């Protein structure tokens, strides 16, 4: 059970029920639970979609696609059953927010999935949780049993005449499955190999039926939008970036934790005030703004409003909400090496640029960090990354390339400091990246 953090600047919407025991159905009901789905049943699909569009909620998984628009792409009539699929395969390094939502407020995710299903005319929603999060699968199963027992899910929900099933599902260890088409393959009992698009899931998704796929945090926000109104939610954030989001602060900050802040909150302030600044009184070297896939920022680049559009203008992405802070003693070559180890491990091998690209990059960075680098390796790392970018079947290749390109371009001098057989300068000075505190 992960610890909860808090800060006065937080605006608690999705995290409103954290720590209040809302995983228990009765407690959830006391805290306005299942009121939104009843309102949605009365108001109907068109009203739901228009509120969602007004809310400016954008997908919290990483891509930031407007949720209301995504729902509106689902055809009204379909010969095949339609589905809602909740993506709880949270695996982007630096991201640990969906875990808290599923632990503290599982019914909000169920309710959000039900509202999504009502909006698009689906009769079944699946909530897919990564295999490592077994305790959350257990919490979700108990929550679903309780909801079914009260007639909130299943046949004739809330006496409305509408049948709506919500099911749980679990993975078994694969980052790639967080990609929406691979997620559907996994749910169909296969290897998580991504599908070619078009057709997009909204038209041809699970078992060939139109499918809406939303992240856990996205769906958890939905009941609040339905009750509070789209306009209210939109105003919490910045134009076109409605609401709040859970930012996962990690790495070299004094107070790591998951904090719910309005979209548009300043990144520098987030690190200095919410996170308590760089740990041990050290200087900042770099920030990963939205999970390991996003290009890194230098200390003079972080005076930024944390919303999707501002970060894109700054050459990076808001991504999954994983803000990772690196202090002055961090070796950027080593950081790039660890990131590439991850993507090489997770590449499904289906398409060649990603499979070969991540493997060569990993081998080159391993040798380079160990002191066996030659000058042309530096440009070669860039060349390999840039050739992977945009040339892979799914975004995993891009996710490996983007941070690597930013590290080489912004911290090239650190690569040069490793040349000519010299050992890593950060480890040589006895300031290894990792220093375990001796006492708790």
């Amino acid at each position, binding site marked *: 059970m992960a610890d909860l953090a808090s800060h006065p600047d937080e605006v608690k919407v999705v995290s409103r029920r954290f720590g209040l025991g809302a995983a228990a159905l009765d407690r959830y009901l006391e805290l306005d639970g299942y009121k939104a789905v009843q309102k949605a049943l009365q108001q109907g699909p068109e009203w739901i979609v228009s509120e969602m569009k007004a809310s400016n909620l954008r997908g919290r998984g990483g891509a930031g696609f407007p949720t209301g628009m995504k729902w509106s792409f689902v055809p009204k009539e379909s010969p095949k059953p339609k589905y809602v699929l909740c993506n709880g395969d949270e695996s982007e*390094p*630096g991201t640990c927010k*969906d875990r808290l939502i599923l632990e503290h407020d599982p019914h909000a995710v169920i309710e959000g999935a039900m509202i999504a299903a009502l909006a698009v005319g689906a009769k079944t929603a699946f909530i897919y949780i990564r295999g490592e999060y077994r305790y959350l699968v257990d919490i979700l199963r108990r929550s679903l049993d309780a909801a079914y027992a009260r007639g909130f899910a299943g046949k004739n929900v809330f006496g409305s005449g509408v049948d709506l099933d919500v099911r749980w599902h679990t993975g*078994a260890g694969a980052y790639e499955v967080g990609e929406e088409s691979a997620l559907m393959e996994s749910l169909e009992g296969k*290897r998580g190999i991504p599908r070619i698009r078009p057709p997009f899931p909204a038209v041809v998704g699970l078992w060939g039926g139109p499918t809406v796929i939303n992240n856990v945090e996205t769906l958890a926000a939905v009941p609040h939008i339905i009750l509070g109104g789209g306009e209210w939610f939109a105003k919490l954030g910045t134009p076109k970036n409605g609401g709040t989001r859970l930012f996962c602060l990690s790495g070299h900050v004094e107070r790591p934790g998951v904090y719910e802040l309005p979209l548009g909150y300043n990144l520098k302030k987030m690190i200095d005030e919410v996170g308590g600044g760089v740990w041990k009184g050290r200087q900042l070297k770099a920030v990963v703004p939205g999970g390991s896939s996003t290009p890194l920022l230098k200390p003079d680049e972080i005076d930024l409003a944390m919303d999707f559009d501002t970060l894109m203008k700054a050459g990076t992405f808001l991504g999954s909400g994983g803000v990772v*802070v690196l202090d002055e003693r961090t070796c950027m070559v080593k950081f790039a090496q660890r*990131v590439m180890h991850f993507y090489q491990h997770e590449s499904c091998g289906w398409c060649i640029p990603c499979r070969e690209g991540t493997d060569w990059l990993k081998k080159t960075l391993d040798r380079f960090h160990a002191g066996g680098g030659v000058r042309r390796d530096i440009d070669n790392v860039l060349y390999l990354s840039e050739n992977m970018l945009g040339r892979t079947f799914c975004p995993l290749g891009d996710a490996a390339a983007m941070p690597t390109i930013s590290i080489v371009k912004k911290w090239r001098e650190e690569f040069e400091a490793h040349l000519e057989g010299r050992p890593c300068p950060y480890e040589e000075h006895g300031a290894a990246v*990792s220093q375990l505190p001796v006492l708790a």
Partner: protein
Amino acid sequence: MMPVSPQLDDFFAEKMKQYPTQRSFLVPMLLYTQDELGYLSADAIAYLATKVDVSELEVRNVISYYSMLTTKPRGRYHVQVCTNISCMLRGAEEVFEHCKQRLGIGHKQTTPDRQFSLEEVECIGACSWAPAMQVNYDFHENLTREKVDAVLGQYRAQANG
């Protein structure tokens, strides 16, 4: 003889009804079978292949994709140390080294008494509470050397008890 318990078999049969195709629940079935048996034995693979009506080769094909699934027995307590970025920045490599020394085994190895196995794993979603590890499905976070010793000691006591 069915390789899994009747309870698990019933659970699978019930759950499979919720999907439009027979193989859809395969990935969770593999994981729950492994939880019961400790690994995915040849018998278990044959049983699941029949159950979802695909070839054994296809089941193995699925198994090989997912990092949590294994066809080789592991320790009773599977220690999984995350060394991905957020954990690495807060000392995960030392946690992993410390576990290696304490357990006397390396990455993907099992102790001779079959009680412990060790694995360096990718992000487990404990970034804000780093460094972290999982022992089976239990999370242990904000690790220090002392905390790792206490955690391992606790499992060792369970193993001996």
